[in-house]
């Protein structure tokens, strides 16, 4: 009886560690990424090899699993933010402000999605700003306000409830190359929480 118990305990632990640990760690590396496959600059994270034919296995699995068709990171880089600059989860219960500056030489796009990558319905039918559509301050900066209800200036609606993510796409080969090496190449906008309900 004692030997059977020993065998069962060992089998159970083996299965738990081998399958649970193996699949769990793979899921984490594919979904969240690590320093092997991503670079983090403040709240922004980029899969620096996304879209490249020589991408690492984690990046390949990440793009396949999430049904992404990324542009090669030698040309364009996509940054995702799930949190504000202080580490709080982005939620539509709060208002946020982004100041975009120093990206004058790049074409960029900033869009808000729910956590599954879907657009969030809003009466204004506004889902993104680009470097072409954003209104600028006299000094060239662009201040974008993320809020549930209408705000003056560059207002980007963030849905009626729940968490959301921001995607910043930068089309700038020099910056993409710098990010691949670990440097942001330019100042990415901070995401400041303004107020919460």
């Amino acid at each position, binding site marked *: 009886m004692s030997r059977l118990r020993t065998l069962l305990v060992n089998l159970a632990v083996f299965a738990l*560690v081998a399958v649970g640990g193996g699949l769990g760690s793979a899921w984490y590396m594919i979904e969240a990424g690590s320093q092997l496959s991503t670079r983090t600059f403040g709240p922004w994270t980029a899969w620096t090899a996304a879209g490249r034919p020589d991408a690492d296995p984690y990046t390949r699995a990440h793009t396949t699993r999430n049904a992404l068709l990324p542009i090669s990171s030698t040309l364009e880089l996509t940054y995702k933010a799930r949190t504000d600059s202080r580490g709080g989860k982005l939620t539509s219960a709060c208002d946020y402000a982004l100041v975009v500056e120093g990206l004058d030489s790049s074409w960029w796009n900033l869009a808000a999605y729910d956590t599954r990558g879907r657009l969030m319905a809003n009466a204004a039918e506004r889902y993104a700003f680009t470097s072409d559509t954003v209104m600028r301050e006299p000094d060239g900066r662009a201040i974008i306000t993320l809020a549930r209800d209408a705000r003056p200036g560059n207002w980007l609606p963030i849905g009626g409830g729940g968490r959301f993510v921001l995607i910043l796409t930068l089309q700038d080969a020099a910056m993409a190359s710098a990010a691949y090496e670990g440097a942001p190449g330019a100042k990415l906008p901070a995401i400041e929480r303004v107020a919460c309900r």
Partner: protein
Amino acid sequence: MTTAASLTLPLKAPRWLDALGWRTLAGALLAAGIVHILATLAVPLLGAGSGFARLRQDLPANRMVVWPPSAPGKEPLPFLMPDALYAVCHYDLAHDSLRVAVTLAHAGWLLSLHSAGGENFYAMPAQPLHHDQVSLTLVPGGEKVEFVPQPRRVGGPEANVASPTTEGLVIVRAPLKGLAWRQDAEAILRHASCTPVPR
């Protein structure tokens, strides 16, 4: 004076831990590593939920299709850039090569070629100081092809691009500066083409 032997842990380890051998733990960690590697490599190979797999069913082969701008509940793919029009061609090089002709009219416009695995093996952004018409011929990778001479449909430099897979996607992304530009952008995208070329 306190000795190591006299120190006691505040919590007792569960009894079943006594039955656990170090060999089991070492073997389990090794097996976990193997499962980790196999799972990571399997995801792109299975690829059932990949971007290409999702679009392949709905797109005719070797024909350019213009999508309307994404709207909530009508996104062809997750995290697709909104406020942009897309022209997409599902290419199949099993029999013919493919001539792609597009116009990249404004900053932010982009032509990209993706293999069935999702890799972006070619991309051409709009370049304000250069010709905005792009023409290229997509050929199967590693295959030497003799082309039938044909008149060019558009101006600008023309190149052969080898596709690493027989099937894939040609995507033209046209960000909109505003509603006023939509008609103009749609008209330009409707002229984008992907046409089979005998080889």
